[in-house]
């Protein structure tokens, strides 16, 4: 694919946008499960965080002996927040312990909201980078015009 290197910047921005989109999903999942006392691995839901890593793509053969090129970002894992779970007194709740306390998820809405704004802004930044790249290309094309 001869054009793949030409549009590397746009591919990198795309990977950034995909990553931020995943972060958005994780935050939405945290907010949705802010009151879930049951989860897949038993116990109450724990808030999740996404871990990103830089990607170095192997450049196509023939280009300076397989030199590493920039490949953007990718999400490597989802980690659970191991902070303490708040305990709420609800004796009637089916998940209540002997003392009548229920462990609630450690999701704090203000934190999630701030993360949400950060994810939105980071997405916007990637979008802006893609737009700037496109604009640069268009300006370069004007060289061909008489």
């Amino acid at each position, binding site marked *: 694919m001869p*054009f793949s290197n030409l549009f590397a910047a*746009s591919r990198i921005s795309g990977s950034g946008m995909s990553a931020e989109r995943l972060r958005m999903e994780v935050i939405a999942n945290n907010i949705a499960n802010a009151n879930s006392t049951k989860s897949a691995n038993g116990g109450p839901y724990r808030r999740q965080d996404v871990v990103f890593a830089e990607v170095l793509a192997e450049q196509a053969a023939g280009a300076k002996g397989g030199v590493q090129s920039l490949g953007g970002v990718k999400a490597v894992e989802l980690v659970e927040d191991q902070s303490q779970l708040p305990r709420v007194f609800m004796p009637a709740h089916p998940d209540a312990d002997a003392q009548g306390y229920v462990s609630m998820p450690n999701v704090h809405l203000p934190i999630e909201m701030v993360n949400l704004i950060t994810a939105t802004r980071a997405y916007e930044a990637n979008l802006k980078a893609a737009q700037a790249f496109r604009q640069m290309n268009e300006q370069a094309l004007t060289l061909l015009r008489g």
Partner: protein
Amino acid sequence: MALEPLGAIGNLGTLGRMPALNPQVESGQPTAGTFANMLNGLLDGQRTANTNANEAITQLATGEAQDLHSVSLAVAQAELSFRMILEMRNRLTEAYQEVMRMQV
């Protein structure tokens, strides 16, 4: 004395012997294929970008698309590469017409 620096221009004559600049003279056979190859390479790239954009749009229409921005990026890439081809074609046509208008 004042013209002495211009003597360096004489070295430019060696440029004509550089194989990269006039391969057809060196090899003695026409290399008409190279320009066509280059154009074909560009067109291939455009075709790939176009196919990618088409696939992305199809995936969006069928609900298989993972995210909207990759579709938008694929379409933007196809548009940009197409416009590059278009500009080059315009430029080539212009050059051809320029030659045709030449007085003989």
